[in-house]
């Protein structure tokens, strides 16, 4: 009797282990959607006829009423030299209205800027993009005004304080920098072009009372490939 019990006790775990085989492998996941890529760069992409990029930079302090809309670069950070001592922020807008109502669903978007200089060259700077929420005129906007005769509600540009892309740590110049932009913002630029006021790029060094800025080539630069570029990745719906 005792022997039988021992045998049963041995048998039970064995049955337990044997009977617990693993389930089948799950089904293969669905095939990914086919995705398209379009680039936007003034005078270059999607074709040489595209001119929908506007940019300028704003400088506080002594140059608070100066417009920098036709210069071939923009500064982000703080500029301190001679009479200049002010925060510097860049405004950048891509007009995507020509894509409205065309079944486009944005999955990913990048803005690529060419950083040609850091001042001083040893400085490091972190730059973050925000969404502007007021119309501005490229050849009129200044630190104080969004366009001639109209002040920003807050000097230095009216923007939503939640970043719309990653902050980029910059410790080297002479190369392209890639900002990943929230796809829903870019979708809005397509679906509601009247609400596309572009982005403002702000750095963490602007509050430090030292000359610390990063220089980028603007859409007015004669070297087309250095101009700001937007790359959108999308599917069709």
């Amino acid at each position, binding site marked *: *009797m005792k022997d039988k019990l021992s045998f*049963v006790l041995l*048998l*039970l775990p064995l*049955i*337990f282990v044997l*009977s*617990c*085989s*693993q*389930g*089948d*492998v*799950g*089904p*293969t*996941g*669905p*095939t*990914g*959607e*086919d*995705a*398209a*890529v*379009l680039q936007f760069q003034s005078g270059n992409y*999607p*074709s*040489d*006829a*595209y001119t*929908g990029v506007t940019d300028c930079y704003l400088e506080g302090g002594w140059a608070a009423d100066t417009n920098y809309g036709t210069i071939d670069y923009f500064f982000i950070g703080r500029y301190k030299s001679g009479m200049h001592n002010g925060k510097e922020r860049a405004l950048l807008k891509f007009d995507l*209205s*020509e894509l*409205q*109502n*065309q*079944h486009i669903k944005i999955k990913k978007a990048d803005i690529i800027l060419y950083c040609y200089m850091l001042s001083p060259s040893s400085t490091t700077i972190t730059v973050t993009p925000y969404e502007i929420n007021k119309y501005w005129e490229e050849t009129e906007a200044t630190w104080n005004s969004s366009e001639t005769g109209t002040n920003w509600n807050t000097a230095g540009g009216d923007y939503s304080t939640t970043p719309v892309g990653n902050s980029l740590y910059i410790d080297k110049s002479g190369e392209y920098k890639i900002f990943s932009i929230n796809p829903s913002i870019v979708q809005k630029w397509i679906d509601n072009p009247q609400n596309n006021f572009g982005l403002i790029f702000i750095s963490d060094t602007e509050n430090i009372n030292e000359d610390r800025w990063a220089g980028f080539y603007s859409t007015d630069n004669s070297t087309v490939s250095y101009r700001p570029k937007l790359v959108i990745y999308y*599917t*069709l719906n």
Partner: protein
Amino acid sequence: MKKNIILLFAILTGMFLLSCKGETGPAGATGEDGKPLYVQMFQYNVYPGSTYQNAYDSLIINDGYPTRNYGRCDILALVSGYIGTSRLVLKFGNLDNFIPANVTIKDAYLVLYGGNLVTFTASNISAYKLTRNWTEGTGDCSGSETTNVSWNNYSGSNLWTNPGGDFETTPISDAVKVNTYVSYHTLKLNTTVVKDWIQSPSTNYGIVVKVTDETKASFIQFAGKEFSTLSWRPKLVIYYTIP
């Protein structure tokens, strides 16, 4: 003893049933990645580049002057229901220079910018495949010449078999509503037809765009290929994958 065996048997069966619910199997494989979707746009003097001039468009109208040509008019008017009927003829050529013949066309769109001036109605428009070639002409918005495409003629004094254009009666696009809100209107085109334009360019005669029900009043205006705002000009967008 017998009781014990029965009890044991019952326990074993119970355990077997309870324990036999195997663990969840491993997750399935990840699905395939989607394919790259190549996009090529065509727009007069814009896409693929500022030198592209193989786009052609004109309105044709039966308003009492059905031989007038409007090939250089920057407005494409689609009128129906009262002062006459007008239709648009459009063609994008040289596609085979930019898209390889062996690709798979996934989607193709004709994009027209404009709206309906008639405030009390909205009209559907559709595209139809032309079966005869035509010459665009140089008439301005007053119909200043009569030797090219018109309601009656496809070229010179050569008559369409059917006034208003020879086209297949089954539309090659969806029906798109045009209301008074001025914006982009996107007609989804039959991809087989678009593929033919690439593979057999010599039989690409383009399309007619017309109000689907021409008995209803509409007065639609779209920007034509001469329109000063480049991005409003008629645009053909082709999405394809490479085999």
